[in-house]
């Protein structure tokens, strides 16, 4: 890693001011460091300063109760995974947290860092490949080795977003709170991510200079809501998703009254499929409905030369995830 100065602020305002200070050189935020440090070791990032968020108390609280869910951005995945309240009422999030990486990573990786992590595309992760995402002119995966790349929403960059928590949180109608010197703003998590075609090339999120994710919130689930996160890995022990499905449904009187479906590992952003959701509402959640929802979700998929398998794979995952919620 390149040398840097490590700053340990004790308040959020200090941290924000440090990030905004132009005299500091290239500045990056340090949370769990489980992604940032690997980027720095590969010289994909070489900040002059790291601003540590762990020295600020009170950013890691988990409140899971009758008022809804509020998780401080510095809460670790291990803490989230073990929280009984989260598991009971925001099950997809609990399952997503438990599916991330390995126990060693989960013990210190944070929810904020997980949502903001950079992609795993092997061209992106190699310093020698000066790809589109890093300021070059070509997405090498597009015409190259693209087995792990996007089948939906891709172009001109074909990365898949690697976060497990993001699709689960989208299926739970989560919002993210951002703080800067200008104040706070809250937006739907779906809106936090930017498609490459909308400019999300060198960055994947709307996070601005001097802005910090401080909390993730989700509403109290509608009575009777069940949610799940299903992650398919090439290597079960420790891997990113080859494809993943987050789903939540409310079933009343034998019919679906509400559905959320969000895919991971197949698109540059967590891929919410409203067409499939709409198709389910008012119907019995049976094999036929699940199959139709899966078809609808993958309509418009544009596989590349080597990742066509993600289409039947994702359909299977969607069908099974939905049926697992049928009760």
């Amino acid at each position, binding site marked *: 890693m390149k040398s840097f100065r490590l700053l340990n602020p004790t308040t959020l305002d200090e941290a924000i001011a440090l990030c905004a200070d132009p005299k500091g050189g290239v500045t990056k935020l340090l949370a769990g460091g489980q992604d940032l440090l690997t980027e720095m070791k590969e010289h994909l990032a070489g900040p002059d300063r790291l601003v540590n968020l762990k020295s600020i108390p009170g950013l890691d609280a988990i409140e899971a109760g009758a008022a809804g869910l509020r998780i401080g951005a510095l809460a670790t995945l291990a803490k989230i995974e073990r929280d009984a309240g989260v598991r009971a009422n925001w099950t997809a999030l609990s399952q997503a947290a438990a599916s991330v990486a390995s126990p060693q990573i989960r013990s210190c990786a944070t929810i904020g860092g997980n949502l903001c992590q950079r992609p*795993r595309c092997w061209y992106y992760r*190699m310093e020698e*490949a000066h790809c589109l995402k890093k300021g070059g002119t070509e997405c090498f995966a597009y015409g*190259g080795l693209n087995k792990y790349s996007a089948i939906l929403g891709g172009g001109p960059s074909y990365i898949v977003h690697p976060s497990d928590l993001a699709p689960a949180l989208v299926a739970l109608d989560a919002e993210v709170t951002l703080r800067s010197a200008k104040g706070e703003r809250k937006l739907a998590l779906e809106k936090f991510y930017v498609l490459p075609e909308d400019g999300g090339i060198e960055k994947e999120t709307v996070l601005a200079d001097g802005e910090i994710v401080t909390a993730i919130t989700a509403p109290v689930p509608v009575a009777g809501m069940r949610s799940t996160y299903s992650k398919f890995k090439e*290597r079960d022990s420790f891997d990113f998703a080859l494809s993943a499905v987050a789903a939540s449904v409310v079933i009343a009187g034998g019919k679906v009254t509400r559905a959320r479906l969000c895919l991971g590992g197949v698109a540059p952003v967590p891929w919410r499929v409203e067409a499939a959701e709409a198709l389910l509402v008012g119907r019995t959640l049976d094999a036929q409905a699940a199959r139709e929802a899966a078809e609808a979700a993958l309509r418009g998929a544009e596989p590349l030369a080597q990742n066509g398998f993600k*289409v039947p794979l994702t359909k299977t995952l969607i069908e099974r995830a939905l049926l697992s919620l049928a009760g």
Partner: protein
Amino acid sequence: MSLQDTPKKKKIKVPKIVNGIESEVEIEVDDVPGGTWPERSSLRLLNHDLPRVDGPEKASGRARYAHDVRVPGMVYARLYVSPLPHARVKKLDLDAARKVPGVVAAIGLQDEPKWLGEPIAAVAAESVEAAEDGLRALAPQLEALPWAVDHAGASRPEAPRVAKDENLGKPETNGDEAKARGALKASAASITAMYTVPIQHHACLETHGVVVDYRGGDEATVYCSTQQTHGFAGEAAKELGLPGSQVHGLNEHMGGGFGGKFGLGLEGQIACRLSKELKRPVHLMLTRRDEFLMGGNRSGTIQTIELGGSAAGDLLGMVATSFKHGGIGRGSLAGQPYIYTVGDTYRAVRSVLMNLDASRAMRAPGHPQASFAMESALDELAYALGVDLLEIRKRNVKGPESWRNEAWKRQLDRAAQEIGWATHPHKTKPGPATGTECIGIGFALANWGGGGRKDCEVEVRIERDGSVSALCGTQDLGTGTRTYMAAITAEELGLPLAGVTARIGSTRMGNSVGSGGSVTTGSLAPAVKDAASNARALMADHLARVMNLPAAGFRFLPEGIVNDQAKAPTVMTWAKACATLPAEGLRANGKWVDTLQTSGAPGAQAVRVAVDPGTGRVRVLHMVSVQAIGLPLNRLALKSQIQGGMIQALGYATSEGRVIDPVLGLHMNANFEEYKLPHALEIPRMTSILDEGDTRNAVVGVGEPPVIPGAGAIANAVANACGARVRELPITPDKVLMALGKVV
């Protein structure tokens, strides 16, 4: 035998290892009765489960490896290796590197790297951080030159030349093509299929490297991670310009080899050069990325197999057209047909050179590749003929050594029993691709030599205080060498295992074979037994003089030393007996005794898998090995060794393979995130059975056979489960879905 008698000589065949690859040579040895191992039922330590004597050091993190060595004044060295397969170095700022605080040396090594990963420069510094800064300061600029890094790119006529010779080598042929094709035509059914295996990495957890401790003067110590301690130190001495006797090689523990750690290597040469110039100790251990690029690999292959048989299942004809991918080297591939006997055969094998590091020996070099193709083709033919998958194998093991054929048949039956073949519904046809869990079974065979040769020199020392040590400058890769050295000696002297200390890994001890080709056990164990036996004889001679009793009457038992010919029976404790020794104790040497070892390690494996046709997921549920091993020295270590081999085959079959982008010339998965080893959730239930039908009272090395059959057995099991025949490793979900026709 009087001193005037000249012992008769006899000729025997022994393995000869060059860089871990085994061939056979004939040698002459004395024809004297060698000695035999005791009757198995009388063995107290050997043939039992013995906990590893170096287990406590390893489990507590106290075992010291080359990577861990710290000596005063030591500097850390790092390499800059070529990220491109062929390039010209246009700029390399060695001066800037030298000016970086903490950097003590920066040297250029290569102006025009011709293979991906070839070292271009080296930097040495006082800290690991400064060494990294030094590398960055080089600010290299490379001009890409034409390269060839894949089969298509390297074998086409206009391909850029990798070396002086043409990329596509001349075919090495064997057999009669016309006859083989005639036999194929006359077959009741025949199949043609192309099988592809990628380059696999050794992925030793401890990377290659060395600490060269030279501080000026006329001697040096090298702490090496190697499979051949004496050889390594000898090469280091040459590089340092010192006499071999002045360079002490130390290799007490090493973190895995699997065939990849023979010879000083480029990294060792560079470390020696730096240490010589700086007159300071140099620690040079490859980073994980450099290890993937230049640490060696198992060659890839493409094999097109045409195989035909009779209606009853006899193999009549085979034509095997193969290519070896060994980087800038020739690669390796065991000859087809692999193990099975086919009536008329023809094979043609060609090397395809590429701008990639040369392949090296890797656990059974060339065998897993050949096995995968042969076993897969055999199943495909069996389905075409409608013949039972187990029976076709038993029917076609007709090699020249009938004992091996009988062993394979017996082992196949046992493996089939363990895997649940009797009640399995799909014996002649694959199962349907329905539901979420399709169960399949696959079989495959292993074959190996595993005999030893005469190059181990062992010393056993008995001290006056009763302590005993067995010494040899050999290595323990995790193979359990230390433990059986102690056990053999303890068995011989009637001592508990803890009563003997095995000392290895120093060139100040006797010579040893390199640990490759599974020859260590067959070479070392007999020499240890010989040394222990000689020590016992010398002890008996000594006690005979002290106690005035016939030497031949002494017996060394766990309860103490007795003499059958003593008037009044007495038991003398070991401690008391040793107390009568002179101050310098007792020393005995041992050398190889050919009757204590033998060659021949056939084995059979069976695998059960569950395939999910909806996702392509393959779960390996159970792997069974039935292995002939001669006399087991340590059953617990054998179990670990055999399971370990099966797990390496599991990775080979289901998740491993080097990936190179042919256009950009980049190694895409030079890390443990994208080069996927099996971890805990991938490990199936494992059953390791030592073939009870093998009653040979001689030791055989079995490091290699257990890794051979797994990939073929797994591929067969997947096809058997649901009809998904994947002919290219690794068998990942995408390939299964494609084989099932689910990817349009």
